[in-house]
């Protein structure tokens, strides 16, 4: 999509800038689907149960047609020497944190999109490429995306990844909660394969009950906190842990939904610089128009 060079981009911007700056963001932003169903599904990740076998990584790649390699190669634990983040080649990764008590086993943490109830990626996206489905999944539409990557900056968990090494039609990549599988009545691929059921799939509200019961019954095993219960307005994927979440590299987040486009971009890249929202709307608008132009050219 971003085929034009920088000069022609700036030229177009200057030309149509004046017209668009007057528009409200609502007008430039396409309609988004944001459904919060009572029965939306979720996953409870119990980090005290996960053994770090990385079978979920393999299953995820296999389910999403990404090169997965040999399942047995995932038993190699040397990958844990460095911290990894999900990217366009692995929508979920597992990391390992050594236990402060050296006689105990390390803690493994699977990382993927949290499928927020109030997704910052969704509110950041100016063309409405993201939607929160009633199943709980936050999904992304390649047709609408203009490649602006606002979602990457907005996401409090740094999840959306961009296919930087793809010259043609690079996509945003992130966990889609296996929406194709779940609509067919299957479990998400990672949940299905997990040997120890460290990933429990169920209605989000049931999972919160399950998590509370576990914390109550095993106070020595768990800290009294469910990550994702209230953070950034609640998430579909939630975590239980035996140690502080910050020790496991989870960001410390408030209960308010993560700021959407206006705040996050200002805070994220242009801190102290106060460009009006309209500038972003303008830039986004230009890209959108360009993409449309390209598309019609292709047709």
């Amino acid at each position: 999509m971003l085929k034009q060079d920088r000069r022609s981009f700036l030229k177009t911007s200057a030309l149509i800038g004046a017209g668009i700056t007057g528009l409200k963001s609502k007008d430039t932003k396409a309609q988004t689907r944001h459904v919060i169903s009572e029965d939306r599904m979720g996953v409870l990740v119990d980090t005290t149960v996960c053994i770090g076998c990385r079978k979920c990584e393999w299953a995820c790649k296999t389910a999403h047609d990404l090169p997965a390699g040999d399942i047995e190669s995932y038993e190699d634990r040397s990958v844990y020497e460095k911290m990894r983040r999900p990217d366009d080649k692995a929508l979920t990764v597992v990391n390992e944190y050594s236990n402060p008590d050296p006689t105990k086993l390390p803690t493994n943490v699977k990382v993927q999109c949290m499928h927020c109830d109030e997704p910052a990626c969704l509110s950041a996206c100016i063309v409405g490429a993201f939607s929160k489905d009633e199943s709980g999944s936050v999904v992304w539409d390649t047709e609408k995306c203009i490649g602006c990557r606002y979602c990457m900056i907005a996401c409090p968990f740094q999840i959306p990844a961009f296919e930087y090494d793809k010259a043609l039609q690079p996509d945003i990549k992130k966990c889609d909660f296996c929406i194709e599988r779940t609509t067919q009545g299957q479990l998400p691929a990672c949940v299905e394969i997990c040997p120890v059921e460290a990933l429990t799939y169920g209605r989000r509200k049931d999972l919160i009950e399950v998590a509370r019961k576990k914390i109550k019954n095993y106070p020595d095993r768990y800290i009294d906190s469910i990550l994702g219960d209230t953070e950034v307005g609640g998430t579909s994927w939630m975590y239980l842990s035996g140690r502080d979440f910050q020790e496991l590299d989870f960001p410390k987040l408030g209960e308010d939904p993560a700021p959407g486009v206006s705040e996050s971009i200002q805070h994220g890249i242009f801190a102290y610089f106060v460009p009006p929202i309209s500038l972003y709307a303008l830039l986004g608008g230009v890209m959108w128009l360009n993409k449309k132009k390209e598309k019609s050219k292709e047709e």
Partner: protein
Amino acid sequence: MKKISIIILVFISASIYAQKELEQHPMAKSLECNYCHSCEIPTKDDPCLYTCPRTHMVTLQHPVEDAPEVIVLDELKEQSDLYAPVVFSHRLHAEMSNMAGGCQLCHHYNPPGVILGCQECHENSRSRTDLNKPDLKGAYHRQCIDCHREWTHEVECASCHLLNEKIVADEVQVKDYSEIKHPKIIEPTKIVYNTEFDDGDIVTFYHDEHVNLFNLDCSSCHSNSSCASCHDTTPLKLEPTLDQLHRVCSECHDTEDDCTNCHIKKERPRFNHELITGFDLNKYHKNIDCKSCHGKDGFKGLNDNCGTCHTDWSPGNFDHKITGLILSESHEGNDCEVCHENNNFKKPTCSMCHDEDVTYPDFMPGEEI
């Protein structure tokens, strides 16, 4: 009238019998009946037990000989065909379980009497309504992997089951485990620890002494050991905390304040009652376990006065013969103190009745045997 009294008698004895039965119920004291039984009056034929877990551990120990030798865990076939079923050497595992918590290590929340397999409580489906306990696949793996990875520090699926695609048809067979037994564990006798404690760096531990003196089972101390305690293939360079180091000892010893009880500057000889206390555990006391004299709850110090423990001894009930001396007729009826002044039972005195020239052992008060 006679008939009625027979009926009453039968009724009374039946109810006494029933009461006795109830008292013998292993859990009756600690639990409410409806904790395990779903009906008002459970019977032997229909105990109406809830099959699923309660919040407490309820379980019985069974002799390992009763344990099934091999169990083929193939219930998960319907869920996934990635890996082949596990051939689980149940008895071999059970043999070692008493050091790690016994049968209930795996058969947790087991109602008394019957032994339930995992599948009785854990549903064989990941899409289910009761999410409070793991499904069958999760339950199996949690039980196995937690020990196996402590042992190898890896998660090697192939150590229990191969990928189905790697199985050549005739390779799937149940191995014969009937002859395989866990080798007998060789009990250590003396272990000397060199510690970093300045006031006493040496701790000498006589393992057999503890076992015999205190009448201990392996599981009295090793109740929480994992297989990895012996089998760890790559022991981590661990630095356990002071607490962890003392955990086993502190069950009985005061490891907080009384350090020099165990930590001294040199190797300690074996426990010797006479050397340490001055009281020789002669042939009569040698085989008595410590608790019979020193009390069952906590340690009770004693003096060497026989009467402290043997409060009921009198000429009428003490058979002097067991000391190796049958008292002569003239001595038989005397009170103990006549010869054993001040409770000295080692050496009698004769001066209460005899002249000074009559002394023990030149003159014996009876016949030696």
